[in-house]
Structure formats: C-alpha cells, structure tokens
C-alpha cells in the first residue's frame, strides 16, 4: 500500500514540474510592470528601478527561476505583494475555506444527483428520465457567477432567508477554535452550536450554487452505469430468484454501479475547484480562488504560482484518494501504481 502511494507520487512529479515551469513563464509574460505598480503613483523612473531591484525583478528570467525553485525546495513560496504576507501562510489560512465549500457542494450534489441518476436508469425513457436530463443540463448551462448573484438577490435581498453574503461567518461571530479549519467540524468539536448554525447558514448559498453546476456529470454517469448493471446477468438472476425490485436495485445493482461514479468524482472535484474561483468572488468567500484571481489581475506572481502549485498537488492527492476509495468500495480491485 505505502509503496503504491510512493510510486504514484513519483509518477506525478513530472506533471507538477510541468505546472511549475508553465506557471512561472506565464506569470512573467503578464503585461503589468510589478515594479511600477508597487513603486506608487508618483514614482520616478529611478524609484521604479529601485523597487525592481528590491523585488529581484532586475535579474534575468533563468536566474529568477533558479532562485524561485531554490526557495520552493525550502518550502518558501515567496510573499504576496498585494497583501504583504507569505504565500504559504495565506494559502494555509484560506485553503480550508475553499475545500470546505467544494466538499460541501460535492456532497450536496451527490445526494441529489445519485438518486436522480438511479431513478432515471430504473425508469429509463420515462418523464423522470427526461426531467433529470433537462434539469441537470440546465444547471450546468448557466455561468456560476450569474446563478450566485441571482441566489443572493432572491434568497437574501428579496426573501431574507439566507444570511448576508459576508463570507464564512456573520461579523458578530468569532471563528471556532481551529482544529481542521473546517468551520462546520471545528464548531461541532468545540460544541459551539450557535457558531455551527451560523457557519452552515453562510455556507448554504455558495454550496447550492456550486452543487447546481456539478449535478449533470454525476447524474449522467450514475444513470449510465446503473443501466449497464441493470442489464447484466447477475441482476437478471436476482430478479429471477424473486427478490423485490427495491432490494435488487439498492443492494445489488447500485453497489456495483458505484465504481464509475467514484471515478467521475475526481474529475468533478477539480472542475468544482475551478468554478470556485468565481463563486468565491460573488460570496466574498475568503478562499484560495478569490486570492489567486486578485493576484493574477495585479500581476502579483508569487500567490498565483503558489495557488497553482497547491491546486496541482491537491489534484494528484484527490486522484490518489479516489483510487484508494476504489479499493474500499470494491475489494476485488487491486490498486496499482
């Protein structure tokens, strides 16, 4: 098992190196002159040059890259110029917000899309099937930022059901003692029920926005995979043996149909992390996505590089976790490197 994990990690190294190189080059091509930006509105040409030297931007690209890689090996991702803090600290502080949101959306999406997919498969070509298809496809057809703003307008501004879109917690709550960085879990651990409720309320709208966006792939794959399994011999045998329809579907068919769904989850997760960038901006969510967008628009290299690197590592880890999950769901599957 451990060797397997180690081998998988080794295999991921080339693509992570690729990500580092591409990001580095991309950020250097960004049109803004960082030095001019940070030298302030009234800087003379000489002052801009001083800032350039101070930021190390007067060096040649290969030299800059070498020093960047050197810092990276020491675990130093540099400091953000816009927020003035080390990128590592900022990413560490913001990553839980993004992952909590993404995971919550993924869970919500599973809860809705998997049953829909099952029903659509069982009642193949019925109105439920068509409805599922139209409903989930409609969800993936709207720009997420638009859905988000619309939800805020309807559920906060008009109806007042949702709390103010002020980020992870209402202003007058303090965050629970940090343990996992996930407010929902931390507040439960600390038995702060009020905080838990407040955090859940803040999480609701962004979660729904993201979940709507990810229903389609999950429902689609569940349906396809269920259709395959329902047509297989063992299901026919089980039915012939007189087992009730519900038992057959839930106990035999669904469990076997689960594998492709889990494979898709990895893809959906990274897809959601991308969509996150826009949702975070709409809901003032203090996650890594909004951080990276701001940095990119300010030609602030370090956070962009750090963000992309962290996302790439996360992507590798998630895929690894999914392979491991495979083994849990289906013991016959032997996980290979």
């Amino acid at each position, binding site marked *: 098992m451990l060797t397997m994990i180690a081998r998988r990690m080794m295999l991921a190294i080339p693509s992570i190196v690729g990500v580092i190189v591409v990001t580095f080059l991309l950020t250097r091509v960004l049109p803004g002159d960082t030095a001019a930006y940070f030298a302030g509105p009234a800087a003379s040409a000489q002052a801009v040059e001083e800032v350039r030297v101070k930021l190390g931007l007067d060096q040649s690209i290969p030299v800059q890259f070498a020093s960047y890689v050197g810092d990276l090996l020491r675990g130093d991702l540099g400091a953000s110029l816009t927020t003035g803090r080390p990128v590592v600290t900022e990413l560490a502080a913001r990553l839980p917000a993004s992952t909590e949101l993404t995971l919550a959306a993924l869970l919500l999406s599973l809860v809705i899309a998997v049953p829909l997919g099952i029903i659509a498969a069982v009642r193949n070509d019925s109105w439920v099937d068509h409805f599922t298809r139209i409903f989930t496809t409609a969800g993936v057809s709207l720009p997420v930022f638009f859905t988000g703003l619309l939800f805020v307008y309807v559920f*906060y501004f008009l109806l007042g059901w949702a709390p103010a879109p002020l980020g992870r917690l209402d202003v007058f709550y303090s965050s629970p003692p940090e343990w996992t960085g996930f407010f929902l879990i931390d507040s439960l651990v600390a038995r702060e029920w009020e905080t838990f*409720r407040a955090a859940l309320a803040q999480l609701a709208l962004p979660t729904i926005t993201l979940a709507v966006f990810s229903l389609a792939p999950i429902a689609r794959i569940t349906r396809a995979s269920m259709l395959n399994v329902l047509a297989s011999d063992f299901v026919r045998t089980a039915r012939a043996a007189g087992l009730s329809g519900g038992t057959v579907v839930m106990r035999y068919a669904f469990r076997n149909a689960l594998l492709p769904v889990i494979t898709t989850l990895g893809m959906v997760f990274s897809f959601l992390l991308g969509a996150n960038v826009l949702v975070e901006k709409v809901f*003032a969510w203090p996650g890594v996505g909004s951080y990276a967008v701001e940095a990119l628009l300010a030609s602030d290299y370090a956070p962009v590089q750090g963000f992309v690197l962290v996302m790439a590592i996360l992507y590798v880890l998630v895929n690894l976790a999914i392979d491991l999950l495979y083994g849990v769901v289906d013991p016959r599957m032997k996980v290979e490197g």
Partner: protein
Amino acid sequence: MDRRTFLKSSAAAVGGVAAPAVWSPSKAQSRQETLLIVSESGPNNLDIHGVGTNVPGYEVSWNCYDRLISHEMKTGPNGAPYYDRDKFKPELAEDMNVGDMSATFKLRKNAKFQDGSPVTARDVKWSLDRAVSVGGFPTFQMKAGSLEKPEQFVVVDDQTIRVDFIRKDKLTIPDLAVIVPCIVNSELVKKNANPKDPWGLEYTKLNTAGSGAYKVTRWTPGTEVVLERNEQWASGPMPKVRRIIWRMIPSAGNRRALLERGDADISYDQPNKDFAELKGNNKLRIISTPYSNGIQYIGMNVKIAPFDNVKVRQAVAYALPYQKIMDAVLFGLAEPMFGAKAGSPLEVKWPQPHQYNSDLAKARQLLAEAGYPNGFETTLSFDLGFAGINEPLCILVQESLALIGIKTTINKVPGANWRTELNKKTMPLFTNVFSGWLDYPEYFFFWCYDGQNSVFNTMSYQSKQIDGYIEAARVAAANNDTAAYDKSVKDFVGLAFTDIPRIPMFQPYVNVAMQKNVDGYQYWFHRRLDYRALTKS
C-alpha cells in the same frame, strides 16, 4: 474502516449538510458599539511608509497614527463637515509656532503610544526622517512640501521639535498635515528592525505602532480588518465607536443589498447609479462631496500625431458628449467642468469649467482646418480598475467621435498595468482621473502640465510659457503676493484651456452611504473615512 461503515458514515455526513440552513441570528448588544463598513478592496499594508501601500492602507494609517497637526472642520458645499484647507489644529503637538524659516512644535505631555510608552521629540524626528528617507511615495509626498532632508528635523528637547525650511514654500505646513508625516513609535519599531530593513517596514506592514485613536487587532488581507478604540488616546476627544469591522465585499450589487437590508453600516465606492437611487429612498443617509482638486479628463498625447495639432485637440473638445456622460454614466453625481458661458472671465480656482461644449459642426470645421476632413483612426484607453465609470464613458466618447470621422478602438487596460501604460506615455487618447491632496491650483498644474514631464503629465505636454506661469504662482504664493498669484493662476488655466492637451469633463463626487443612525461623516482631502468622528445611535 471497512466498506460498509464507510458508506454509512458518508451517508450520515451527507444528511447533516443537506438540512435546510436558514437562520438569522443577531447579537444586538455588540452591534451597538460596532460599525460594519463594507468596501470593494482592503489595505495591503498597514503603514503608509511601506512599499506600494494602496489607498485603503492610507485609511488605516490615518486612523491609527497621529500627526503633529491636522485641519479644522468647516461646513462643506453640501452642508456636511469639510476639512478647512487654511486652518490647522494641534494633534500630537499642543502648540505650533511658525517662523520665517522654521516651525517649532511642542508635544502634548500626556501623549502615549499604544504600548504605553510616551511620545517624545525623538520619535517625531525618527518618523519624519523615515518619511523623507524610505523612498517611493512617502518621500515624494514630503518633497511636495519642500521636506527633503533629515537635517531639517531638529530635536530641541524631549517635548519640542523644530522643522527647518530649505526654501520658502507655502505647502510646507499643509504637507505636515497629510497622512504621510505620521508619528511612529520609534523604540518599538527599532526593536523589530534589522540591518536589511533599518526602518522596520516589515514590522509596521503587519502591526500598527502609533499613538492614534484606533489600533488594528485583526487583519486578514482581502477579507477583513478589525480595529479597536485606543482607550488612552490623548490627541482629541474620545471617539464614540468602540470597534470598526471593515469587510471586503467584491460585488457592488451585494454591497448595495447589505446596505439596503441594514446589515452594513457604511459603504463607499458604490456605483453612482446606486447613490443616485438610494438618495431617493429615505432609508439611508447619502453624502456626496466633489473631489477636492480633482477632475476626470480625456487626455491626448501631444507628441503623437494628429494630437500634436492644437486644432485637432480643440475639435475633440467640441466633440465630447459631455451632457450624455453626466446623465447616463454619472447619474448627475458630478460637477460639470464644461460649458462655461462664452466670454466669462476665468476664476482664481481649480478646478473650474472650460468653455467647450458639444458642438459637432464646430468640431468638424476645426478638424477640416487641421487637415483631417475625413477624420483618422486611433485607440482610446481606459483603466479597467474603474470600469464602472470608464467603460460606458468611453463607449459614448467613441460613438460621438465617430460622428466627426474619428474612429477609435477601445483598449481596456487592467488596473495593475494602468500606471505602467501611463508611464510609457505612448497611449494617444485616454481617460483618467487626477486629484491632489494639497488643494492648490499651482500644485495640480505643477504635476499635470509642467515641462518636467512627471508621470501625471500624461499628455507629455511641454510649454515654456506654462512652466513660467506655474513658477510665478509658486513664488507669489511663498511671498504672499496675492495680485501676482491671481494673475499667474489665471494665466496657466487660460493657456491650459486654449491649448487643451487634456479636456476636463467633470469633477467626480466622493459618495458615502450610511444607515440613518450613523452620523459624523467628515470629508477629508484623502477622501477616506475618519473613524474618530463617527457615531452610531
């Protein structure tokens, strides 16, 4: 974990999240003493002396540090409190004595930094030395008031500091009341400085080390700043609000929703349209004040043909859709800077309206006289950071210029690159805003029109004649020669209008929206909030 329990536990987790999540909790007592401010962006540095501190960072500095002196308040054009350019009041200094070539300040005896140590003249000298030495914006701003060398700041005794003038300059004393010459706790910062960072900028970037009325107790960049009142503040009456929570909400629509639903106490940088509409409904208090010494203009690079031809520039000035911009882009929330009555005399003030107006026939005629009867093609650039105003404005300008044959392509420049682009001075046609902290016409013209060609002279305009007028005004001001001063101001304003390298369009408003129970807003030259005067009932 075996697969059965795994499936069960994940199902349980799913159930927990899917429960309906609609509660609206409120904690009434802490709301009363806390002010919730929302804005688009927040500070990137808590110290204005830092490298590249942004404008929200200035607000933190203003409220967390004291200066030697500050301005008195007067009633502004809209009836709200407005800083008095000409009247100073003591802040950390309890007494100011201005001589011919120096000024002496006596410090308050009871003034303490937030860590409890007393404020001494050595701290003041160290802070002013720091401002003129760190380079970048703070040093530049100090220079604007002829404050250039550490030798100018002399410690007389523990409570007394003298500022020597290197030349007579009317702007020296006003420049001591801007945000930059703030007084820093030198002992504390020196403890956290190192040979690579002798002024301790790394420390003050993240910590406030002043004697001001507020201190930053929590700061999550891009998300939130929390400030608490300094209970030992001695430089003025104790502020009413105990705690300020300042949250960054990127979406303007959401900020408006927060205001209208009463969740946020104050919001500025809303789109003009929001302010225009919120003024109409009586739930909120809206205060609009024109920018002091600031205009939005269309600039033309006079080094690039055909804008080197004055007739082309005048044609453009006659072709701009001024009133349409006032109505559709600004929703009336700005002072028009166009359409002064023909033949009306110039005033001794800046900004003031010019006599151009939308007159396409005249524009066509001027363009033909200049040798471009069929117009020409060019690029119109704007700063995407202010897209809310700039984009519709440029679309209207583009449309209007097309009517006299000038075809333009609109170029959106991301906020981070705008300054770089301005610095290159290669954009032929663009819109931009300039405003000066020090509200004196010659100050504006020195930066925007003078032949030294500073970054703010975005038109690359060079004219010996205007240089002479500007210099004459500066000398006259230093010598209190009112007649000569008035003449020089009229001279350079007049020349700027006939040569018209930049076409002033309007004087923007600073708009602040607050709940009815929030009061005490004051307009300052820096246009940011002064928390010390705010109240909440």
